């Protein structure tokens, strides 16, 4: 027997039991094919030779001794950078169901050691708080079938679309129409929008699949879905294609990709759906975009006009301008002008108690085409963990107070509010979206849900995967490495986009029909909402039900 020698451990020495995910490996089933170790995105597991001592006692000869058995097994690294992320790719490739990650049911230790070399923990995903959200708990309780003939979700005609763009008060519309003056551009779109995910954050195959799916929804299914680019611009072939009309182009503080966009304007066959000016993001308020060097491939570098393989942190604010009011005003006006005042331009801000100030500013800006508020549960490709988990404002109350502010001013028809941040966090995408619409949103943006539903993103709010920032996405969704993203077939993504939006459309009808609504999207129909929490009900100004 070996004695226990003086043990040397470092402060960050952990055992596999200290990790958030523990690899369970069944040696009796393992064929030692090595696929799991090859596929693991973080090299958490390795094949290794082990020696096992087998004590031997020969009673008749009164001899004792040892025999040694050698075997090959799979083991788990315990260093922070190689800790298992729980993605489960090993299970998916194992021919014999011999391996898989199991969540550590005890608290784990890695949170205390993520900041190796003084580098604060950065990750992808969204706020790691699991469980039902406020939106999940809202019920649609004003059932009008009892007082009126029922609507049939399957047979009646429903008007489900929303308006993106500045809407004039009726008096002003008539005046301008008579005078032949400019009427702000609007778009009639499906209220569930694919939120900003940049070409850079997403792999080319993911982007292509989404665009294909969006085009199919528009042109075949008749669902006018639009998708927003993130900050990273848009491939030139898309800019010059007729599909541009389904795309909201985002401009953010790094202005990445806008050289290409501006140069492409003369060659555009159609206008984009809208321009989104990003001032903030729910997942990381106060931070600019971040594309880490792992993902700045040759293609991305070319698109963004930067060298390959460098970190691309966008500044937290638009640097060129003096004040936020001036920034908002000038950027909206400049971008409106760039597209001939034919394209709605709106800002995107992170959920914040100061959202109302921005909104009131926009109400006075005749060119502002809307406001997108992104709540604390919004996702991101890369951010500091502390920003994601602790910074921001939940969307429900933020959206509601902004809407009620507009109602008090009688301006609720004029600036459409879009909400984002945690829509579909637990899969209830239509329910979450419709709850926000009835609280006052004209529509919702969803990014993470789309990655999960349309491309099989494995990330969750219990720390699973969350490595979008590193370019090692095991599904090929957020990677720029062709070896990884070729796993994702754009056709399959497109198919799932069509599935998702078809299902959302059906579920919207299933929610609206019992409420007796079919002629217009029930924006602000707060009398239909109830929640089983009196404080929340009071804050959102909806009914308390129990």
């Amino acid at each position: 027997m070996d004695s226990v020698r003086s043990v040397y451990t470092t402060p960050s020495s952990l055992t596999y039991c200290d990790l958030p995910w523990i690899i369970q490996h069944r040696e009796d089933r393992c064929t030692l094919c090595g696929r799991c170790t090859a596929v693991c995105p973080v090299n958490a597991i390795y094949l290794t030779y082990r020696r096992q001592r087998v004590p031997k006692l020969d009673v008749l000869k009164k001899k004792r001794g040892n025999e040694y058995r050698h075997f090959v097994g799979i083991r788990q690294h315990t260093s922070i950078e190689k800790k298992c992320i729980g993605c489960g790719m090993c299970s998916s490739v194992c021919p014999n169901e011999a391996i898989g990650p199991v969540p550590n049911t005890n608290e784990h230790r890695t949170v205390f050691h993520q900041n190796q070399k003084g580098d604060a923990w950065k990750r992808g995903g969204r706020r790691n708080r699991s469980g039902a959200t406020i939106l999940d708990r809202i019920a649609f309780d004003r059932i009008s079938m009892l007082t009126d003939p029922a609507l049939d979700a399957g047979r009646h005609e429903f008007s489900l679309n929303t308006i993106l763009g500045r809407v004039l008060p009726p008096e002003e519309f008539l005046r301008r129409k008579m005078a032949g003056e400019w009427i702000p551009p609007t778009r009639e779109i499906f209220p569930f929008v694919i939120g900003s995910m940049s070409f850079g954050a997403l792999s080319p195959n993911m982007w292509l699949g989404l665009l294909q799916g969006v085009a199919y929804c528009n042109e075949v299914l008749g669902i006018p879905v639009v998708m927003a680019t993130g900050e990273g611009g848009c491939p030139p072939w898309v800019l010059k294609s007729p599909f541009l009309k389904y795309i909201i182009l985002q401009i953010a503080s790094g202005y990445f990709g806008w050289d290409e966009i501006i140069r492409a304007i003369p060659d555009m066959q159609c206008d984009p759906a809208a321009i989104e000016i990003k001032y903030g993001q729910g997942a990381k308020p106060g931070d600019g975009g971040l594309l880490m060097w792992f993902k700045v491939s040759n293609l991305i570098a070319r698109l963004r006009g930067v060298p390959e393989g460098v970190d691309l942190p966008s500044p937290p604010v638009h640097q060129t301008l003096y004040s936020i009011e001036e920034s908002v005003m000038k950027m909206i006006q400049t971008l409106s002008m760039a597209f001939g005042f034919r394209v709605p331009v709106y800002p995107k801000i992170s959920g914040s108690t100061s959202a109302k100030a921005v909104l009131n500013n926009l109400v006075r800006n005749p060119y502002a085409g809307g406001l997108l508020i992104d709540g604390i549960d919004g996702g991101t490709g890369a951010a500091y963990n502390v920003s994601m988990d602790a910074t921001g404002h939940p969307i429900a109350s933020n959206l509601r107070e902004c809407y009620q502010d507009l109602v008090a001013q009688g301006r609720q028809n004029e600036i459409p509010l879009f909400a984002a941040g945690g829509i579909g966090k637990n899969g209830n995408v239509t329910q979450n979206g419709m709850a926000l619409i009835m609280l006052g949103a004209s529509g919702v943006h969803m990014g993470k849900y789309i990655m999960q539903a349309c491309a099989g993103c494995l990330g969750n709010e219990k720390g699973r995967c969350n490595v979008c920032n590193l370019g090692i996405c095991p599904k090929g969704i957020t990677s720029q490495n062709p070896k990884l993203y070729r796993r994702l077939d754009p056709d399959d993504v497109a198919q799932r986009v069509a599935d998702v939006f078809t299902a959302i459309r059906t579920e919207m009808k299933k929610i609206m029909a019992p409420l007796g609504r079919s002629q217009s999207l029930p924006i602000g129909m707060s009398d239909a909402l109830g929640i089983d929490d009196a404080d929340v009900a009071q804050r959102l100004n909806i009914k308390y039900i129990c």
Partner: protein
Amino acid sequence: MCRLALKSSDTPFSPYEVLLAMEAMQEGYDGSGLGLLMRGVQFADFNYEPENQVILSGIAHTEEALSRLNGIMESRGFEQKYDHEFTVRPELIEARDRFKYIVRVYKKPADMEEAQLEDYLMHTRLMLRRDGEEHGGDLTVFSFWSDVVMIKEVGWPLEVGDALSLFDNRIMARVVMAQGRQNTNYGINLYACHPFFIQGISTMTNGENTAFVPIKEWLEGKNIPGYMGYQSDSEVFTHILHYVTKKLKLPLEVYKHVITPLKPEELESHPQGDFLQGLRIACRRLIIDGPNAVIATLPDETCMLVMDAKKMRPATVGGKPGTWAIASEMCGVQAMVPDRDPAFDFQPMREHTVIIPPDRKELLIWTQFDPFTLPQAA
């Protein structure tokens, strides 16, 4: 569910006729109340002059309320010309706090322009209403306008008519609209009963407007005097009609395009599609979500029936030159104009607006797919 009846005739008739039509449709409502509006009014005991006089309708629930009303009317400079005393049978009325049913004729104040007078009348009505609300609801005021009498009461419609002896021909009118239910979705309240009234415009509706709250919030946000109350989801129909015709000054037909706009693909081929597409967006908060049939009357005695876009509420219009009727059910039309040719009865579909013009010679059946006349510049 509500049942509605409207009759419009060249010669004044008793409102009781319309109550009998309500009775014909009795299976369709719960009889929880009656709302009645009369236009083109003729009193047996008084020679009413619509161009010089206005009529106040309401209920004083106490003697004190009535004396406050007198004080307010005097202070606003209205000289009383006639006080209609109903022959009341209180035993037929459910409520016990009805001191006096008010139908009073006042002289129009002199030296006021038309628009100024319209506002003055409405503000006086709102002042009386507010006064009643401040005193525990002891004063209820339904209308204060030229040539309009309104009665609202809880109970079975015909019994209310009997209670007020409406059969006695002491009040007759050329246009009578009646509705037989107190409230569909909200609390019982005299103000919640259709028809609703604002500045000469009145509507009544059957069905539930499920888009009520967002529309109400929008109308309230306009801060237009008189856009208040909203004890019923149907009150917004009246205010939208007022907004479209009085504030936006658009033709009557546009009302249909505001509350139930055509779909974008339908507007593409509409001769006024460009304008209507813009109007649809600018007025999208006023899109109703029925099913509703909206029946309206205007100060010039024009009557109108507008169908909702789902066409899930029944309404029939029929009659003959000089006399027309609109009702929720055919039997209601039959009761009001039995000597018409029923083959010419018309049941509007989702795109239709039916207008009975003041001359009552023929019905105008206008479809939303047809153009309407707009001021030149538009």
